[in-house]
């Protein structure tokens, strides 16, 4: 924890998870949805909630430039701010900004040893020690289990929780466990799986996998205008 914190109401806590961070360090979670439903926005909100708590967030993108991701964060933050009684936007934003670092990697050059080397370098120089890792654009359609397994080992070693986006396709049926086919054979590596399901004018946020304290759980939705999560 550091002093760079602000008050940001996190609706995800209303789902009734044991911890504020939803998943403990060393574990992995993912948000699954079709293209265009709002996965990146969800991930950015997860990142912002962590940043607001003073957690260091490393956002890794495999396809978008730094500026664009930065813009995502800033715009989602601007939308969240009025609901959280934040009047001085710039000041609040500058308070939590040091908690985030964006890394854009080329998909073909992405490897766990390389990522580990980068992280070790940053930690050693006391530049940034991530506590939450957010990975957008991970190629679930074509990745093999070993890559994700290595990532999980790295997460455990470095004490980070890791979040992914998983792009599903309209025409695909879920696998035998009820998970998107992209996660077939690797779903055991995830302790928490969300799915965004469009329903008329709203988007439901369903939990596919994860441990809840049942009596506390409230359903969550995504506001299709702002893409913000609400209870």
């Amino acid at each position, binding site marked *: 924890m550091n002093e760079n914190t602000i008050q940001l109401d996190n609706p995800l806590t209303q789902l009734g998870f044991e911890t504020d961070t939803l998943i403990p360090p060393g574990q992995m979670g993912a948000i699954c949805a079709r293209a265009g439903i709002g996965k990146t926005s969800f991930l950015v909100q997860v990142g912002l909630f962590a940043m607001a708590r003073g957690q260091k967030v490393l956002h890794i993108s495999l396809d978008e430039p730094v500026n664009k991701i930065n813009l995502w964060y800033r715009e989602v933050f601007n939308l969240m701010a009025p609901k959280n009684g934040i009047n001085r936007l710039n000041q609040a934003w500058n308070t939590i900004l040091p908690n985030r670092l964006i890394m854009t990697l080329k998909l073909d050059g992405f490897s766990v040893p390389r990522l580990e080397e980068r992280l070790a*370098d940053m930690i050693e*120089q006391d530049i940034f020690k991530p506590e939450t890792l957010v990975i957008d654009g991970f190629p679930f359609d074509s990745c093999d289990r070993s890559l994700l397994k290595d990532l999980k080992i790295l997460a455990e070693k470095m004490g980070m929780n890791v979040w992914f986006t998983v792009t599903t396709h309209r025409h695909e049926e879920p696998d035998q466990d009820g998970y998107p086919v992209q996660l077939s054979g690797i779903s055991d590596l995830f302790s928490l799986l969300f799915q965004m399901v469009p329903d008329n004018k709203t988007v439901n946020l369903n939990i596919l996998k994860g441990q809840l304290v049942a009596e506390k759980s409230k359903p969550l939705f995504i506001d299709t205008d702002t893409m913000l999560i609400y209870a």
Partner: protein
Amino acid sequence: MKIDLSKVRNIGISAHIDSGKTTLTERILFYTNRIHAIHDVKGKDGVGAVMDSMELEKERGITIASAATFCEWKDTEINIIDTPGHVDFTIEVERSLRVLDGAILVLCSVSGVQSQSITVDNQMKRYNVPCIAFINKCDRSGANPFRVVTQLKEKLGHNPVALQIPVGLEDKHMGMIDLLTMKALYFEGKNGETIIEEEIPKELLDEAIAKREELIEAASLFSDELTEAILEEAEITSELIIEGVRRGTIARKLTPVLMGSAYKNKGVQPLLDAVTHYLPAPYDVKNEALDMDNNEMPVILMSDTEEKTVALAFKLEDGNYGQLTYIRVYQGTIKKGDTVVNSRNGRKVKIGRVVRMHAAEMEDIEVIHAGYIGALFGVECSSGDTFTDPSLNLTMLSMFVPDPVISLAVKPKDNKSQINMSKALSRFTKEDPTFKTHVDPETNETIIEGMGELHLEVYVERMFREYKAEVETGKPRVAYRETITQRAEYEYIHKKQTGGSGQYAKVMGFMEPIEDEHFIFENKVTGGRIPTNYIPACEKGFRLCLAKGPKMEYPVTGIKITLTDGAFHAVDSSDMAFQAAARGGFIEAYNKAKPVIHEPIMKVEIETPTEFQGNCMGLINQRRGMILGSQDEGVMCRIEAQVPLSEMFGFSTILRSNTQGKAQFTMEFAMYKQVPQMIAETLLKAAQDEKKK
């Protein structure tokens, strides 16, 4: 002077420093017969490239000032503005872009789209300048023009389309294939002046056919005639493709890409053809002015010599015969003997000598027509002034000028230097709106202010070289500011009754921090508790306090002061008394409002080979910098960060020594941010020590 505007191009050459744009300009002037010999930028032969008319530029191998020059290619007249490549001088680039109709974006085929290219490209977007890209240095080891084409698309968001493919690269670079004519072009003769057209080498034929298909497809989106020809399987002529590409380019929806090596004299003539084919003529571009008589309503200017005159002074230079003012005429004409009005101050200006510039040489002309660029002698004005017909009251759009972030005390070494320095400073402040100067009333020192360390360094050297003014400089000073962090109330009575007429005023209200504004004053006094005629005096009193903050005497910003109540005396109250009360109220509330010091934060982008990424991040971290992100781009990596300006002094040397000279960086002002407590204390101590002295 001919006035066929379809045969006029006003273009700029914009690029990253060291991508070879000065060499390219030199070659263009050579092929258009404006110069008769070719020199290197670095001036190995002691002459130097013609466009770098300033000594200093020759020495450093960089282009600082934008010299406008005129040349003719085939039957088209081309005015070229050579734009500076360093980010510290971007106001020059922006001013140039304002008067351009199109630009050549020069990129290096080895290093590709660099951070400076991104800055320059953003500026082109802002001013809606259509461009064609020239991928230079195809003869260099590691050249890969198609990687650069991909970067144009991915990094700059252009829609690039290659008009050529290279014949050989690196040391085997021989020429290029023109995809319009499907001929291979080679450049022979001592200076590449003879173009040899040959059949396409067999091994490149398939690639050329495929790339031509891509070109036709891209161009067809902008030309129904071309689409029709494709559908009807009719012959696709070069003219059809040119027209499609031209429309796409002018709409900024297509970027034609050419390639070659200016240094090796390859590909420059086809580039000139492309300038005439694809970049807009003056009437293709919509130019607007603001009508000062009509609430600054935009007025569209017509590139017509019959209309009333509107012209913009975009660049001043001090020549041997006095001030030379570069102007672009947007409407009407500027003729010797004409009288026009400078719309900034309403003064009438009589036009004396009119010239057309070719870098440092000039040619006398009678008239400058709408759409043309030229220069005037003996006209007293500042850069950015608009000249109009006396019956008009128009101004060209004002350009955004950022506040300076760094200052330096300069002290002339002797009396002669003192006089020359004054002349130089008066000239520089007219030339460059981001360069400011004033005399500190306390220390009596002359202070110069600008946008970066290099920016000021260059002016100090210019003082010496051009004006023989030898000056000693103090340490660069960062432009700190003060602001408050919480709301605080004030209630202050100013009362004096020591003989003569008394003084009485009472003010009450509060101050609070605000974002995005320097100062807001709000009057909420009701019921005549303070008569309305004293309200401006209150505002003035508060405003006067802003120049020097009570905390550390830095300017105060980001503050809103509300006046809610007060009291007056029928006899003893006066403007003076309310001003004094406001000052008292300000100081009272200010100290309660938790004042803090703010410092300028620069947006820094470092481009480095991946192996030095860790080192560079470390350097940023040591400088209180915040790393926003890092972007992998193959062998290179770009780090984006925010670093306090005060920590960036001498950074270029340190960066070079930590990366074997392989990394480079750009920086520009981003925002003001609170100084950490520890640093604020150091600043306070330094200020106190200085006062004691």
